[in-house]
């Protein structure tokens, strides 16, 4: 038996939508350096024929293990072209279902990907002063709380993360 399923390996070997996005509308971050996964998700928002806001473009950068990389890749393919409302409905169970078998200790990686997407949409809505659904606000608060715990415990790590990202900000 292989450690990872075919679907995981497909996304790991050929990750989709990789890279930093120029002029993004929303950026979501999730994860922490201690357990070794950091995800950055960028979204560009557009409108569909009916005038609903959709995720026109999406890309990601992940520092992390096989599952973390595969997860973010899979999520980007699932939400590209979807309305923001549809995108927010995706749960970690949806990702896990697509992957089939996932080692137990890796299940939290799926949650991180979903969190990063929620954060990107939250970032877009709040920057544009648009109404934020209650559930998303709660989710954001939870992610912030998690971050706070991480920051209190591992302040240094967060600083390193910021510093590392600053270093690379202007490189295409």
């Amino acid at each position, binding site marked *: 038996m292989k*450690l*990872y399923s075919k679907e995981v*390996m497909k996304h*790991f*070997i050929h*990750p989709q939508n*990789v*890279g*930093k996005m120029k002029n993004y509308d929303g950026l979501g971050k999730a994860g922490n*350096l*201690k*357990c*070794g*996964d*950091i*995800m*950055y998700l960028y979204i560009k928002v557009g409108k569909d024929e009916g005038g609903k806001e959709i995720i026109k473009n999406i890309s990601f*950068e*992940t*520092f*992390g*293990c*096989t599952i*973390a*990389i595969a997860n973010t890749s899979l999520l980007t393919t699932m939400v590209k072209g979807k309305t923001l409302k549809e995108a927010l409905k995706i749960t970690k169970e949806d990702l896990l279902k697509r992957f089939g078998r996932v080692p137990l*200790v*890796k299940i939290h990686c799926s949650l991180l990907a979903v969190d990063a997407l929620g954060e990107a949409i939250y970032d877009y809505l709040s920057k544009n002063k648009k109404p934020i659904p209650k559930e998303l606000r709660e989710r954001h608060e939870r992610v912030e709380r998690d971050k706070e715990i991480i920051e209190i415990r*591992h302040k*240094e*790590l967060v600083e*390193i*993360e910021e510093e*590392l*990202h600053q*270093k*690379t900000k202007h*490189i295409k």
Partner: protein
Amino acid sequence: MRKSIYLDYAATTPVDPRVVKAMLPYFTEKFGNTMSLHSFGQEAKGALEESREAVADLMGAKPNEIIFTSSATESNNLALKGVALANKEKRNHLIISQIEHPCIMESAKWLESQGFEITRLKVDKYGLVSPDDVRKAIRKDTILVSIIHASNEIGTIQPIAEIGKIIKKSNIQYQKSKIYFHTDAAQTLGKIPIDVNKMNIDLLTASSHKMYGPKGAACLFVREGTKIEPLLHGGGHETGLRSSTVNVAAIVGFAEACKICQKGVKKEAQREIKLRNKLIKGVLGKIKGSHLNGHPQKRLPNNANFWFEFIEGESMVIQLDLIGIAASTGSACSSAKLEPSHVLLAIGLKPEEAHGSLRLTLGRWTTEKEINYVLKVLPETIKKLRKISPFKKSFKF
């Protein structure tokens, strides 16, 4: 498919075909129980005692000082708990280093929960324990000092002979009760020369499956006169120190593996050092943002351990496996605990640096062609993962 390149000899080694051949009769024809009085038993007992001599020979010990066990983990547990419990009446203190194998770290932690005091010695940036720190840590109530001979992760070889001398001197000068010196030599026996007398070692752990023998056999050298309690009580095998029906086939294999190592230990070490140096030089030269973990010279002949900036080790190992290279990492994502390697943190790496670690360990069947292939494909693998990482710089290859 192309043949895989195995560079994880520190995890385990394939069994040498000569070892397999030596073991085979002990499954079907010479299957007796060493405790039986009849010919089958005598035959098994004879094989066991011959094996004891071969294993003792490789480290300069007497045969009656070798206790066979099932694993290095068991040997290390026996050394720490057995000696601590046998000497607890007047003394209470043990010294280990911060970079021991988990089975020593966890045994020490358990002893701590039972009321023993543990000093965990710091190491320098290369992973070296300072003999002077050992001297300073020794107290009147010290029972045992246990320092790993060479790190299974970063390959740093400790100054065991020097530490042995310090403990011997301290025993002569101050102590009424002897301080025992244990070393975990699972990564070194058969790879570098060991003499338990010259090095003043009282207890030594060695393992068969790290030196081309089968899994399920290991030993603890216990110097004559050492006060030690068994962990397993029963029929009184191994002079009462390790009751259990003896795994004769595996022990015969272990002994055969020792004999093979004894013949060629220096020559093989030189061959591996040459290949390892080529690998280290090549990686550091070809890949920007790559660093060597451990000491540049005082390291196991077969160990190379790096960390790469901006990427994570688990995905690196899986990526390398896809192109036919078997390697290992100290990343949190590879462990059940989701914490980075305590050894890499002890030598001063930050967690995210430890996450980017990669261990390549060579062995008897590693060829120069294989090292060349690794040097050819590793830079591409690193580049691919850095492309995905949010923390990349504009690395040029």
